[in-house]
C-alpha cells in the first residue's frame, strides 16, 4: 500500500504519476502524414518576395525612364501646402485630446494579452 498523501511534495508526486506516459502507437506517423506541403507553409514568405521584387522592378523602371531625385522633390512640392494645413489641425487641443482618447481606447481593446497568446 502507498503511504498517505500527507504533504505537498507527496501530493505533487502522486498527481504527477497519475498520468502515465502514452505510447506513440503511430500517432507521430499520422501527424507527419497530415502536415501541409512545404509550399503552403511558405506562401506568406513568397508573398513578401513578390512584393519586394515588384517594388525593385518599379524603381528600376523609373530609373530607366530617367527619373531623378530633383524630379521627385518637384513632384512632392504641391503636396506640401495641404500637409501643412493638416498639421495645423493638431494645434487644436480638443482634437489632440479626442485623438488621444481614441488611441487609448483602441490600445486597451487590442492590447497584447499575454506572452503565450502572442505566440499564435
Amino acid at each position, binding site marked *: *500500500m*502507498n503511504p*498517505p*498523501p*500527507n504533504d*505537498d511534495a507527496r*501530493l*505533487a508526486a*502522486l*498527481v*504527477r*504519476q*497519475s*498520468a502515465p*506516459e*502514452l505510447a*506513440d502507437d503511430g*500517432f*507521430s*506517423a*499520422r*501527424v*507527419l502524414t*497530415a*502536415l*501541409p506541403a*512545404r509550399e503552403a*507553409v511558405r506562401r506568406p514568405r513568397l508573398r513578401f518576395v513578390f512584393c519586394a521584387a515588384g517594388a525593385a522592378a518599379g524603381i528600376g523602371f523609373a530609373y530607366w525612364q530617367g527619373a531623378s531625385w530633383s524630379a521627385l522633390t518637384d513632384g512632392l512640392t504641391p503636396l506640401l501646402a495641404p500637409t501643412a494645413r493638416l498639421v495645423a489641425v493638431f494645434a487644436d487641443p480638443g482634437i489632440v485630446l479626442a485623438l488621444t482618447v481614441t488611441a487609448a481606447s483602441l490600445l486597451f481593446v487590442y492590447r497584447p*494579452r*499575454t*506572452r*503565450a*497568446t502572442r*505566440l*499564435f
Partner: protein
Amino acid sequence: MTPSDSELIARVLVSDDRAAFGELVLRHQSAVRNFLRHLTRGDAALADDLAQETFVQAYRGLGRFRGEASFLTWLLGIAHNHWRNARRRRDPQVSLADHAAPEPSIPAAAPGSDLRQDLAAALQQLSADEQLTLHLCYQQGLTHNEIAAHLDWPLGTVKTHIARGKEALRHLLAAWDPQT
C-alpha cells in the same frame, strides 16, 4: 548525442526537415495528448484529433516560436486554444462541463484498494479549472507564472485554483491519511 528541441526546430525551419519535426512530435506527444485527454475528460479519440491539429498548427507556425517559453509550453498553449475553439463551436463531442460542481466525496478507501485509483477518481471530482491548473503545475511542471500567461488568467486566480484543488484532494483522500 540527443539534439535539443531548439536544434530540431532550427532543422525544420532551415531545411524543412520532417524527420526532425517527427522527433519533436515523438518527444512531446504524450504530454500533449495527456493534457487534451484531461481537458476532454478522458475522450481519447477526440483528444488525439485535437493533438494532431495542435502539431499541424505548430508546424505551420513554427517560425513564430520565439523561444521565450519551452517548446512544450508553446505546444500546450496551442492545444488549449484548439480545445477552447472546439468548445466554442459547441461541438457536441466536446465536454462543456467546464465548471461542473464537484460531486460528493469518494468513499473511504476500501481495504486493498489502490491509492492511485482513488487519486484518479478524486481528480475527476475537482472542478475543471482546478484539474487544469493542478495538471499544468504538477504533471507538466509549469510554474504559476507560466500557467497564468498560458491560460491568460490572473496569477492570483491560478494560485487559488491550485490551493483549492490541493485542499479538495486532501479532503477526498483523507481516508488514506490518519492524521487528517
